């Protein structure tokens, strides 16, 4: 029965993904006015240029034909071509995606490293001053505008101490041959320790920015699922058996409490991707988010359209993976 449920959940994701694509298709038509006019700007463009672009975007075809062509392209992995750079959008996204994934992974690591111990300490003594401090700090963190926090970090960590770099992924003087596009991995592969150090130093502030804000949300989940686990009978049983308190907390309670916490973290990955759009802007991080923002200002809407669609599909896929993993772990879990 478990397999049927998982299959059903996977099947449910397909219409959502199709809906996302349809929405992305129509987004160009949301533009106030003629998309081609807006994208070319009002500089002296010839009629021939306009017609060429209309042909390129299939805007000279009736709507249903446009939609069919759009899906036909998607099926072949063709996301269209950038108006400004005149190259495939898929190539532009492929160049920027590793930077975004690397940043998101680092953000998640920061959030977990901060949230798990704090949530644990807080749940062991609910109502204590530690618990109250953690809870009020987490409310402060959750109220924090991430982009502003990033600027504060720059102000305190980069200006005065001149310690940490504030933009880019690596010192421009270091040549690192891209293999995977993930610079941490690439520098490890090349066994280039100077490059690795530079990459990590560039990662610290962007990852801290959203990692701290995200930790504020995560710490509450860990605290409450820990409190919930500590009330269970197996904890009483373990204590009655004379198991030491540390083992009870770490082995019995924490392991069970982590399941809901991991689920929350997984479901938030999409929001992290979104939030990183801002972090990428603040720290000039060459990821997909920055590509989207730059493309908006360049009126390169084909890029915006494709990238947003990809964000959404990634989000749907991430939620799917979390749900299925959760169902596999916990057979009592209801899907759908």
């Amino acid at each position: 029965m478990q397999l049927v449920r998982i299959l059903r959940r996977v099947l449910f994701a397909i219409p959502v993904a199709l809906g996302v694509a349809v929405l992305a298709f129509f987004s160009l038509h949301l533009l106030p006015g003629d998309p081609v006019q807006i994208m070319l700007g009002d500089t002296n463009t010839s009629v021939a240029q306009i017609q060429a672009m209309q042909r390129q975007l299939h805007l000279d075809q009736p709507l249903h034909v446009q939609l069919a062509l759009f899906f036909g392209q998607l099926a072949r992995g063709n996301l269209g071509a950038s108006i400004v750079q005149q190259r495939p959008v898929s190539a532009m996204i492929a160049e920027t995606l590793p930077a975004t994934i690397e940043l998101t992974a680092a953000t998640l690591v920061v959030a977990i490293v901060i949230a798990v111990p704090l949530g644990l300490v807080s749940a062991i003594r609910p109502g204590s001053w530690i618990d109250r401090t953690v809870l009020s700090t987490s409310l402060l963190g959750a109220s924090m505008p991430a982009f502003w926090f990033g600027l504060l970090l720059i102000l305190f960590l980069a200006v005065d101490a001149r310690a940490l770099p504030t933009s880019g992924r690596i010192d421009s003087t270091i040549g690192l041959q891209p293999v995977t596009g993930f610079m941490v991995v690439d520098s490890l592969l090349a066994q280039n320790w100077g490059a690795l150090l530079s990459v990590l130093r560039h990662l610290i502030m962007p990852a801290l920015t959203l990692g701290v804000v995200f930790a504020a949300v995560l710490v509450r989940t860990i605290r409450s699922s820990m409190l919930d686990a500590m009330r269970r009978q197996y904890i009483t049983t373990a204590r009655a058996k004379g198991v030491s308190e540390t083992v009870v907390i770490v082995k019995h309670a924490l392991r069970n409490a982590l399941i809901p916490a991991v689920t929350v973290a997984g479901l938030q990955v999409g929001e992290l991707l979104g939030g990183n759009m801002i972090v990428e802007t603040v720290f000039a991080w060459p990821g997909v988010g920055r590509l989207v923002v730059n493309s908006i200002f360049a009126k390169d809407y084909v890029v915006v359209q494709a990238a947003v669609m990809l964000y959404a599909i990634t989000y749907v896929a991430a939620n799917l993976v979390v749900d299925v993993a959760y169902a596999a772990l916990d057979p009592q879990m209801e899907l759908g």
Partner: protein
Amino acid sequence: MNALQMLYPIQRHGIRAFSSINRLSAGLGAEPVGLIAGVIVVIYVLAAVLAPLVAPHNPGATDLAVRLAPPSRAHWFGTDALGRDVLSRTVFGARVSILVGVLTVGIAAVVGTVLGMLGAYFRGGLDMIGARLVELLQAFPYLIFAVAMMAFLGPGFWNLIWALALKGWIEFYRLARGETLSQASEEYVEAARAMGYPSSWILLSEILPNIMNTVAVVAMLRLGFFMVLEASLSFLGVGIPPSIPAWGSMINDGRHVLFIAWWVSTIPGLALLVLVLAINLLGERVREILDPRWKTA
């Protein structure tokens, strides 16, 4: 009104609303945190409403002679790159944050609650469409959705509110739908139905008062979120047009002069943080008072 309805008039909701207002004022007054948060929010609202009277300078007045002036007696929080008074712009910026936050939450809460209640009560086609729409909108991370909407709609005050509310209603929809489903199976609703009250009456006078508290609490807790989202979009340059002072765009202005004039970014950010924190604190207190399930330890 039929005989049964005349014999057993239902008037419980009047007492209920009265008691929750009583409980709220007593509960918030009893604890310093809730009280302080409430006072802060009131101060912000007053400053926003009375901005032309409160602000020492014209928020749009440029004075290149004093550009990037540090905090002084004339300019408490210094001036920006165009010599505009940061304090005055911050005071006026409160208008945008509060208006966008309240209007977005208001639209989202009303639309979501109405659709959720109707969907849960009547089921059928409306409920189906609602569920599919929710699934589709949930596929987008919030910020990405709002940025994309603004990219295609263009900057503007109302565009921003629509872009935020277009996804914001789903939370209220799901909440109202779930609450209505559970209320509809309660005996008092069944009794009203048996007595021949029309559906509209049951929804408005029976179910709505009972789910109002929960909706209000969630609205309050979302308010701060929308304010941060508005500031994020204005920071990216796709929110409020630059002619209107808004905290997000002010923070962005200061980004380029961070090292020589820290106050330009820091002050509006601090204003935003304090307001959102106060609203969230207040929201949590209100939730604890109105909904005992949320009592913390």
